[in-house]
């Protein structure tokens, strides 16, 4: 009940505040001019607020619990991505005034025809990223009101689509900044209080020692809504709907729907894909091979460190920085703010294995952040803290999903529609707004269907693919486009196609092959960035070098990208407001 109230307050609060703030900003002054006064701290909180998604809030802890401590590399990579963004992209892009890849490609390479290609990749990345947000919504609503998974997906998908269509919660730096602090508070406070209440980490044998997760002293009872195949690590007695059974060590059992009960101290059975080892193995940040070995860790780091700059909903936020140095300052602050948030998913992963082993039986490790507080701390305090994490999770996927859907709708209504109709004229404001709304509705449907089908894929894994795709396409385009005069349109297009093909090919092959492929190949299919990123870079460089077509004079472009402000060159540097500002319809 408390949880329902908390979630409703967050939802109505953000939507209401967003709508109100849009109205307010519109009536006082131009949204984008007003934003020039925003300080780097507010900007940084806003970037972080839009960035922290269901993957960060729920996914990392769930994946850590399920696969082991190698999942916390996700926390590291998600943060480190902003360091590469700072080093190579933040200031030049702010000076250049392009905040979507389509605009950048058109302005830098003089290739308007590449818009369609860039648009297709934006849709792919945003789609991959939107699916796990909706999955998070499904399980969170299931926790809060006990609704079936699909209800949460559909309800939250609809809320986000309506919200984006109406223009709420967008371009509003302050709303996103507040969202960041809500999320950080909602993940940090329960973690700290739980650690104090428990006096440190319990069940250390199962976490770091030679033990495996076991039923607590009161026994473990789990309700299974559907049959599920599990493996018993050690010989265990258990009951199904009151009937006693026994499994020998290593036995695979198909548990029927119903009530599954373990006696006190009984070994908890694990599902497919769970880390099978004892605590020593589970808590290794780098395993010995296959899907938690060094190859996988490096590939994951490459994807996240290089992929962040290619996320469509993040770059747009950099427009509110007044100049290049401010963009740098904002990014440094983002590193600090994210560093605070990402300390906490680890805590939930550890406590989850120690205190919520029932999630292994049901396969719901992705809900550990929501479930842990009231499992670890029975009574009112635990329920209050669970309500808090549920509210934070809602804030997480509402803000990220809205940002992603704005990118999708903008791309569909502006790039794709304009290209297919053969016109690049945006049309009048009214028809633009109508097309944007149509884009928002169309853009949520496919991710919603995928989320319904992907109920058993981990949130953290899905987001890892979005990063792989971004790192293999947009990252090389930005890096080479900004720092190398020799990049040509043909080179960039070939590289993006090659990177996208290899990355998505690897992902789909990995999906089909499942756990049957082990070793190095299994690691690279699970996270193909280590192969696809170098291929994309190489293709871009080679094709550009061999490209016989006449070059665009790079000098004015380099001037716009790199010349510091305050030289009186502004007439050259900023010919027009960023196209993505004009492409968004005036908020209604």
């Amino acid at each position, binding site marked *: 009940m408390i949880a329902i109230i908390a979630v409703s307050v967050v939802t109505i609060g953000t939507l209401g505040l967003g709508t109100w703030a849009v109205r307010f900003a519109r009536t006082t002054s131009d949204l984008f001019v007003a934003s020039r006064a925003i300080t780097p701290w507010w900007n940084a909180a806003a970037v972080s607020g839009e960035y922290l998604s269901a993957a960060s809030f729920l996914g990392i802890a769930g994946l850590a619990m399920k696969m082991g401590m190698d999942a916390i*590399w996700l926390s*590291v990579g998600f943060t480190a991505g*902003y*360091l590469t963004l*700072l*080093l190579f992209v933040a200031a030049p892009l702010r000076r250049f005034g392009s905040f979507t890849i389509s605009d950048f490609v058109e302005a830098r390479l003089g290739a308007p025809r590449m818009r369609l290609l860039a648009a297709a990749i934006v849709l792919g990345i945003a789609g991959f990223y939107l699916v796990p947000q909706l999955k998070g919504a499904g399980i969170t609503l299931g926790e809060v009101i006990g609704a079936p998974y699909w209800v949460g997906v559909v309800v939250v998908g609809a809320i986000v689509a309506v919200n984006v269509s109406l223009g709420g919660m967008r371009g509003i730096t302050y709303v996103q900044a507040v969202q960041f602090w809500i999320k950080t508070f909602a993940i940090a406070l329960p973690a700290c209080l739980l650690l104090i209440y428990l006096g440190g980490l319990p069940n250390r044998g199962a976490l770091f020692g030679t033990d495996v997760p076991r039923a607590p002293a009161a026994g473990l009872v789990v309700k299974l809504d559907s049959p599920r195949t599990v493996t018993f690590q050690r010989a265990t007695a258990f009951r199904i709907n009151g009937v006693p059974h026994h499994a020998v060590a290593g036995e695979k059992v198909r548990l029927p729907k119903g009530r599954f009960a373990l006696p006190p101290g009984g070994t908890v059975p694990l599902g497919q894909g769970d880390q099978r080892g004892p605590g020593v193995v589970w808590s*290794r940040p780098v395993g010995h091979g296959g899907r938690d070995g*060094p190859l996988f860790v490096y590939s994951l780091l490459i994807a996240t460190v290089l992929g962040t700059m290619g996320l469509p909903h993040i770059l747009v936020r950099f427009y509110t920085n007044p100049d290049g140095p401010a963009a740098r300052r904002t990014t*440094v602050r983002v590193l600090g703010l994210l560093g605070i948030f990402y300390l906490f998913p680890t805590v939930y992963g550890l406590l989850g294995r120690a205190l919520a082993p029932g999630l292994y039986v049901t396969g719901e490790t992705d809900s550990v952040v929501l479930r842990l507080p009231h499992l670890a701390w029975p009574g009112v305090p635990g329920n209050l803290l669970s309500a808090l994490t549920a509210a934070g999770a809602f804030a997480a996927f509402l803000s990220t999903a809205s940002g992603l859907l704005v990118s999708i709708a903008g791309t569909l209504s502006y790039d794709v529609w304009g290209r297919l109709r053969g016109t690049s004229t945006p049309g009048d404001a009214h028809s633009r707004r109508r097309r944007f709304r149509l884009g928002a509705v169309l853009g949520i449907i496919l991710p919603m269907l995928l989320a319904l089908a992907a109920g058993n894929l981990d949130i953290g894994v899905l987001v890892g693919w979005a990063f792989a795709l971004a790192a293999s396409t947009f990252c090389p385009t930005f890096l080479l486009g900004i720092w190398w005069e020799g990049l040509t349109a043909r080179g960039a297009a070939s590289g993006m196609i090659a990177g996208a093909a290899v990355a998505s090919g690897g992902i789909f092959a990995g999906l089909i092959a499942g756990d049957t492929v082990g070793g190095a190949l299994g690691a690279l299919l699970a996270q193909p960035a280590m192969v696809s990123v170098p291929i994309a870079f190489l293709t871009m460089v080679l094709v550009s070098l061999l490209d016989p077509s006449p070059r665009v004079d790079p000098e004015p472009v380099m001037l716009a990208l790199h010349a510091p402000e305050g030289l009186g060159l502004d007439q050259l540097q900023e010919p027009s407001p960023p196209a993505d500002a004009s492409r968004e319809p005036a908020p209604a």
Partner: protein
Amino acid sequence: MSPSRPPGGRRTPRDELAEATAHGGLYLRRLVRAQLALSLLGLIAFAGILGSLPLLLFLAPALRRVELIGLPLPVFLVAFPLFPLFVGLGWLYQRRADALDEAFRDLVGR
């Protein structure tokens, strides 16, 4: 482009830059190269530290016998110290990059 041009028709570096003359291009290329060198230096420091950690943990599993604030050292190393390190590196880079911009502004003359 000419309001600040000194009397007597002498061209300042800024005019050369604005009119994309050979000299202006040279100044700019020098700045881009300096900024790129700085960014690459930052990348080497960052990738060196972040990149060596998985290898270290892979090659020295015995580190796990050391405990810090109740966590085995490998878990601690991944979970905590990298975040302040990123901020520190970013802050150093930001100061140096701003200084390069400033030097360019002084060179071109305001």
